[in-house]
């Protein structure tokens, strides 16, 4: 697959069809891949990489890239195409400057999942028939790839590209029986005290590095309210529990209705806080209350958080009905 992508990129660059290619640059290790822009065919040929560790969603970079002169080609996995559409809806991407190459995806591996199995000293990884052969300085290890996929890939919501100018590999379908709301449901069934303890356990690890916010394709404010000394809520570090809660509630709320559940926030969290569970709670709520809505499914959609009906909307008191003491 890597070679296919590379040749297509080279063709486009050499033809002059596009001026830049937004893709992934190889690093020192098989997994330390950096999103980058390639303009030089030679550089592309030498340093472009596509493998099971190319998890980064490239669509956010298009806010800056598509504003530049010339055309940029970008490789988008199915879940990334939702973010792309959502950014187009918000008029953050100059669509005419972007050439979208949809690429097939089977799921991406989380290197942290490998580490949690005690695998360290990784020098190489090969994928063979659904399992990963990992060379380490301490010997070879083998794990079924499915087991070390990132959470978002184990619960993949769609293998369908909602937007593309051309496709490499096959287009898939929306995954109907995905279990992504299972954990949210489990939490909802807990008592309020248990939920409180669960979230304290998770959010108290937050170091406020802002990685979740900065990587999020839906978080694209020029200046975040938490960085603004005039907002009254400026906080560089969460000084106490309240500030941890406030940051994560507001972060999740601000992207509600725009979040495509791409899972980047949870991928980048150095403390492995399951931030996607906050986003998914909003998604589950508005789906149940206001009808199914998939952010980024098409361009120009009205978010259920900004929309309303005059007669059918639930009253806020519905929340009280869930057992909570």
């Amino acid at each position, binding site marked *: 697959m890597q070679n296919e992508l590379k040749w297509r990129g080279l063709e486009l660059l050499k033809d002059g069809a596009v001026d830049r290619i937004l893709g992934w640059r190889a690093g020192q290790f098989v997994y330390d*891949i950096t999103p980058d822009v390639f303009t030089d065919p030679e550089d592309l040929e030498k340093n472009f990489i596509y493998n099971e560790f190319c998890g980064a969603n490239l669509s956010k970079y298009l806010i800056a890239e598509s504003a530049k002169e010339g055309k940029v080609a970008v490789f988008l996995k199915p879940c990334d195409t939702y973010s792309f559409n959502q950014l187009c809806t918000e008029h953050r991407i100059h669509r005419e400057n972007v050439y979208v190459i949809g690429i097939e995806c089977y799921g991406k591996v989380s290197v942290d999942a490998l580490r949690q199995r005690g695998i360290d*000293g990784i020098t190489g990884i090969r994928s063979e028939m659904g399992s990963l052969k990992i060379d380490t300085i301490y010997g070879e290890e083998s794990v079924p790839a499915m087991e070390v996929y990132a959470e978002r890939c184990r619960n993949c919501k769609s293998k369908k590209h909602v937007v593309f100018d051309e496709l490499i590999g096959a287009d898939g379908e929306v995954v109907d029986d995905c279990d992504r709301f299972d954990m949210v449901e489990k939490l909802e069934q807990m008592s309020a005290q248990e939920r409180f303890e669960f979230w304290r356990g998770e959010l108290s690890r937050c*170091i406020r590095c*802002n990685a979740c916010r900065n990587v999020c394709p839906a978080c694209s404010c020029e200046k975040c309210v938490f960085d603004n000394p005039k907002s009254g809520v*400026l906080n560089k570090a969460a000084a106490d529990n309240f500030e941890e809660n406030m940051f994560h509630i507001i972060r999740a709320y601000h992207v509600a209705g725009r979040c495509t559940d791409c899972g980047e926030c949870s991928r980048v969290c150095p403390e492995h806080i399951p931030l996607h569970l906050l986003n998914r709670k909003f998604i589950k709520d508005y789906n149940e209350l206001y009808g199914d809505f998939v952010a980024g499914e098409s361009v120009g959609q009205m978010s259920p958080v900004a929309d309303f009906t005059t007669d059918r909307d639930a009253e806020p008191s519905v929340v009280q009905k869930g057992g909570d003491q």
Partner: protein
Amino acid sequence: MMYQIPMESLDRLLAAIAAQQKLYLPTDNTAGEAVYTEWTQGAALSKKLNTLRSAKDFFFPQIQNMAKFRREGKKIEVIDDRAEADDFCIFGVRACDVRSFDVLDNVFLADPVDTWYETRRKHATVISLACTRPGETCFCHTFGIDAAKAGGDIQCWETKDTFYLEPLTEKGQALADALIAADGELLTQCGADQEALVEKETERIHKILEKLPLYDLKAEDNRERELELFRSKKWKELSSHCLGCGACTFVCPTCQCFDIEDFNNGETVQRYRCWDSCMYHDFTLMAAGTPRLTQTERFRQRFMHKLVYYPKAHDGLFSCVGCGRCLRKCPIHMNIVKVMETLKEEKE
């Protein structure tokens, strides 16, 4: 003088230290990462390579209260609300983190001394632990750090069946003596045979280190090239996809920048300091604005500081210890190793 204790008695050793003073050690948290926690009965020493956050937290915590102000009428009362510090012991610190204390000392203990840091530092006993299984992201060797001889007040090795301790400082010896005084059977003095075994373990670790992919990475003395590197065109490429988050700075054992803020609750003002990150756009913000307008400048600041400015001010000592945390935690995997190699190419 070297001591030993069977591995299965490690819990006994930890309990004995905890009986003397507060003991912190790396344990696994629910997310599967090692973090320093206070020892309680049954706490298991993590088998992970290193803790997620570095040991700098003990001396320079992310949030630290500095003073309180209260107004009564026309008077303002200033309250120093520092709590008396007790002696405490950090167990299982890796060689890289031990070196990071030197880097921090140069900053916080230089005149004017940072008394908050100094107090914590004075009360701490550092028990280091040699790395048994270094990872591919380790490059402490680049900065002349020996992962097999970790340093600190007491340095330790763990092998399959035996745990070895070697007090290096007065503070370390005092702790060892106190342990022996409390329980004469806890520690056994090592003979020449055992010391040879430790030597063997050290060699084993060195052999592993040689196999690491970053073993050959060289840290070049760039103190003379300050301006040239500052003006390098490479920064733009390197930083072009930096997200501007603070993950690298917050997991870094040597990052020492902080911001001082006031929290006003209407009655009292709590002045506190918290970690700041040069990757943030409001870093060193002044009335006239910020001196570093783009992410490229902020990115350059971070690495110039680690590789050029700090060495320039401190006899060539780098402000990086090769712990590899930023290599693991950067969301886009842009890290100091890539920067060092790019700057090297620049020269060639």
